[in-house]
């Protein structure tokens, strides 16, 4: 930022500075925009605030809609954390989200790379076929997945929970778009230097798309961390429940322990918050580039 003197000799900030910001005339359109953004922000934040608030309340206070608990307590947290099942579900979620993330990073980028950098007959058709699967809603896939899992004996197994997400069309598309940005010269130079095609992908192309890999890893991790429908359907053994499925066991036919559900949900957001805090710049860059390319 460059400090500048205005015509009257007063010191002000340069272009983009705070002084300029405050001098900008407030137009009606801007007020409408800020209002909409504010309302959108409130809409996003309020459920989280209620979740945290409810997790600090006693059962009798749950349906009191005040944001600040009258008698704040950590008893819900102690109860949930002392319940061995919560820890087990947490580990299950962590294991499944990590394994699917690693798998997607590997296979999505490998397929994306091949579709981007290798010229072969039918390449475009394969790409379109992969993309077209994005248009099929998960609800439609659940039955075929279930039948497949049943016939292979994968019901009530970790593999049964993980297999539909081990490779994604979205990830393949994202990585293909990113590999477009890698100049062919890099790959050809490596080819001349004696690397085989797998080594070129792994040692040269992959490090050059690290931001995309990070963004993809975050998307996949979060998607699997919060996945509910499929893990609910494919598992009946509570030892295999993921966290979102396990949290539903706090509600039974006659009673729903909202404070415990909200406590578990609050604890479950910690990893996702950490992931966002550490990698948000990669997410933003990944989304921007995926939108710009191709």
């Amino acid at each position, binding site marked *: 930022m460059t400090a500048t003197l205005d015509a009257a000799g007063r010191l002000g900030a340069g272009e983009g500075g705070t002084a300029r910001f405050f001098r900008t005339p407030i137009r009606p359109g801007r007020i409408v925009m800020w209002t909409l953004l504010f309302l959108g922000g409130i809409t996003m934040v309020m459920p989280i605030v209620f979740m945290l608030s409810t997790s600090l309340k006693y059962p009798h206070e749950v349906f009191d809609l005040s944001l600040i608990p009258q008698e704040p307590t950590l008893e819900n947290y102690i109860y949930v954390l002392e319940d061995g099942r919560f820890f087990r579900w947490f580990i299950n979620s962590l294991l499944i989200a990590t394994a699917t993330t690693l798998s997607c990073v590997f296979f999505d980028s490998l397929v994306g790379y091949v579709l981007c950098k290798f010229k072969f007959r039918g390449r475009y058709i394969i790409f379109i076929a992969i993309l077209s699967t994005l248009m099929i809603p998960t609800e439609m896939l659940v039955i075929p997945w279930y039948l497949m899992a049943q016939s292979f004996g994968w019901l009530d197994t970790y593999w049964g929970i993980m297999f539909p997400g081990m490779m994604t069309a979205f990830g393949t598309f994202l990585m293909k778009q990113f590999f477009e940005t890698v100049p062919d010269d890099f790959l*050809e130079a490596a080819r001349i230097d004696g690397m085989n095609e797998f080594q070129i992908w792994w040692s040269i192309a992959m490090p050059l798309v690290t931001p995309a890999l990070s963004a993809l890893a975050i998307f996949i991790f979060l998607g699997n961390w919060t996945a509910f429908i499929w893990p609910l359907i494919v598992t009946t053994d509570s030892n295999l429940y993921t966290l979102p499925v396990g949290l539903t066991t706090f509600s039974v036919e006659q009673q729903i322990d909202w404070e415990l559900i909200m406590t578990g949900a609050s604890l479950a957001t910690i990893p996702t918050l950490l992931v966002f805090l550490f990698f948000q710049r990669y997410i933003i860059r990944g989304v921007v580039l995926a939108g710009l390319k191709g």
Partner: protein
Amino acid sequence: MADVSIRQIYKQYGSVEVIHGLDLEIADGEFVVLVGPSGCGKSTMLRMIAGLEEISGGEIAIGGRVVNHVEPKDRNIAMVFQNYAIYPHMTVYKNIGFGLRTSRLPQADKDRRIRDTAKILGLTDLLERRPSQLSGGQRQRVAMGRAMVRQPAVFLFDEPLSNLDAQLRAQMRLEIKKLHQAMGTTIVFVTHDQVEAMTLADRIVIMKDGYIQQMGTPTEVYEHPATMFAARFIGSPSMNMLPATGTADAAVTLAGGARVPAPPSVNGALQADQALFLGVRPDHLLVTEPGAPGALHLEGTVSVIEPLGPEALVYVTIGDRELVAKAPAHKTPEVGASVHLTAAGEAVHLFDAQTERALC
């Protein structure tokens, strides 16, 4: 080191043929520059030698071994790319040493070779830096280092200087020439810059539309261009061209009626009423006093002056054509002045208007 033989090479993309049966013999240790405008096929030729592009017909041999179906890594070549292609996630040391990763040399020997190469290229102090911390010239040197460290039989350069500014380009040109003189390795160098071609090459290959227009030493192609294209492409500014007609008495007449005796070398080839182009380089077309000795005499009006320091380029309008001549800086005419231009008989080139080939 090795020689390179290219025999009847064809390249097709679908039904489009872009290289039309070229022959080129490159001697062991020779510095050959492929030069031509964009789309002439020079980079395709280089990539076919490298093995990055399959050939549609013909044969390529390196060091006597036909390499048509040999992988790039097994051709004993190294290539420097236009965009350097140095890996941004690796240090200079790792970039230079990259070509040795698959080598079976002991680690100590690899290290020695990397450091020796870095020393030759003046990169010793930069070995731990990453490409983003280097200038354009330094990156170019790293790219060359990565090629050199493998000690290949043939170096291939694909427009390696085109991303550098003019000053750095001149400096790197000198360094490449020194390296070639020191190492004596066969080099095939692609460029669209005729100055690079002239200054670097032992032999220039001028290409257009997938055909070789002319091959020869820089002096040969400059002094004896084989085609109008070669005449115009080599030399800056381009050779002046004037329409002319052959006469029965070994002379040509220009469109304005001026008569120019044909150079002795074309006497046998010149026919009466033959449609021709008369070419003369700006270096040889001088602003003189009327009556100065010479074979070609023209009158025109100065339209633009471009001072170059010791001399100036003088743009002269003659009828509907504009010619470029040279004048010493202290004798530069004014814009709008009428001037007399003269060229010696041996500076005049004649080209058949139909075939565009030089008469000889």
